[in-house]
């Protein structure tokens, strides 16, 4: 639990529409963020995507990437959050 992870968890929640994954992943690719896994579900039109990504090659800082993703979310009409993997590791795993 001591080492610094470089992975982030990106979640997207909102009304389903064309191009959500494309829009979000383009932002990640533009900044050198490598997607390790994607899981996506749709429950009665409600879209939810969880992505685990490797931030080690990221060309911008965490907060700048967060702003870019949030701006893209606003454009797509969905809520995008990005959080350090440690948050989930600490909360849900001992």
């Amino acid at each position, binding site marked *: 639990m001591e080492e610094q992870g470089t992975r982030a968890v990106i979640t997207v929640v909102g009304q389903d529409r064309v191009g959500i994954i494309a829009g979000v992943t383009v932002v990640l690719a533009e900044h050198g963020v490598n997607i390790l896994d994607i*899981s996506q*579900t749709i429950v009665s039109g409600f879209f939810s995507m969880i992505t685990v990504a490797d931030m080690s090659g990221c060309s911008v800082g965490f907060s700048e990437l967060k702003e870019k993703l949030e701006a893209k979310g606003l454009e797509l009409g969905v809520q995008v*959050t990005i959080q*350090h993997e440690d*948050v989930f590791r*600490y909360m*849900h795993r001992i």
Partner: protein
Amino acid sequence: MPIQFQPTEILETIRMVADEKFDIRTITLGISLLDCAHEEMGPLCDRVYEKVVRSAERLVATGEALEEAYGIPIVNKRIAVTPMAHVTAPCRRGNPAEAARALDRAAATVGVNFIGGFSALVQKGMTDSDRRLIESIPEALATTERVCSSVNVGSTKAGINMDAVALMGRVIRETARRTADRDGLGCAKLVVFCNAPEDNPFMAGAFHGAGEPEKVVNVGISGPGVVLNTVRRNPDIRFGLLADRIKRTTFKITRMGELIGREAARRLGVPFGIVDLSLAPTPAWGDSVAEILEAMGLERCGTHGTTAALALLNDAVKKGGAMATSYVGGLTGAFIPVSEDAGMIRAVEEGTLCIDKLEAMTCVCSVGLDMIAVPGDTPASTLSAVIADEAAIGMINRKTTAVRIIPAPGRQVGDRVEFGGLLGSAPVMAVHPESSEAFIARGGRIPAPIQSMTN
């Protein structure tokens, strides 16, 4: 590489922050000021200012960087210092309020909203320095913005110093008078303790105890909103299961305190102290401890059953949190500050919750009679008697108790005083009109109880 987390786990975390007001309430940097002692007040104040600013210059920026990195709000960045009566001891002619003003300037320079430690520990007796400091508290709190003061008047090991209890009644009255233009706001920053913890990160009672290292980072978590939703989602389950659900929830929120505390300590280059896993309400609806008790099935906080509900909550919070952090400390439990909890305020205004019931509740949760406004003409001896009652509960039950009471100048029962921000607003509550004067006038020390003989 597969996703290690279930989608439900990830969405639960997001919901806690986005909808349930989960936050880290405070990162508090403890700083020893023992090496700032000096025989002259001028150089002493210069040393205090310089050391606090040098030690805490990166505190606020580090806290903000952690908020960014982990996406979890950190509401307050604060400082706790060595009880000032220890630092000003060699300075026999100076006014200790000068040192409070030096702390205030340092807090403003580094951008923290509160700095705690204008304090004296007098559970068994007062040194000359302790007395000088306590007598300067009204001036110190009237002439500073950010300084918090605390005085420990009792402990399980020492008993209760009733001379100090009598003095504190007068000091509280005088502090209210000196800040009368702000409804006695000075008293909101003055805590009278029994069994004060030396590593408490929460204000107004934080100070950096004598057994602490040069510097230390302590973290106070929050999260009444998260626990409230846990209870609301389970309206019909039996108590054993309810306690278990609360434990699971507090485990998770305490883990965040552990993560943030360790990372803050690493980035600031100081040791990590403790996580204080207290449920600290804010004046916002949905972030109230009273609402949790009501969600358990009580029509209004303060009615019969409230003490039992609070006992279950407080115990489950501790059990869940104890597993989640390697170092538990501070106050740890549920807070019931009236002015800072929307549900408590409502219960007082509707007449369900009175001081006597609050006193009973303090037997089973952390802290004590907290942020309670009483009529401005309440006698000092009555304030002292309230303090003595709380100190007795703490002494006998080997727990921390505290009194933060505001005799709001010119106010009567039914009025409401506004302190603003996290301090909230307090309905003025009734105290018993019968006198405690002769009891308080006795003076002396209540002996340590039989519970103190543990060796």
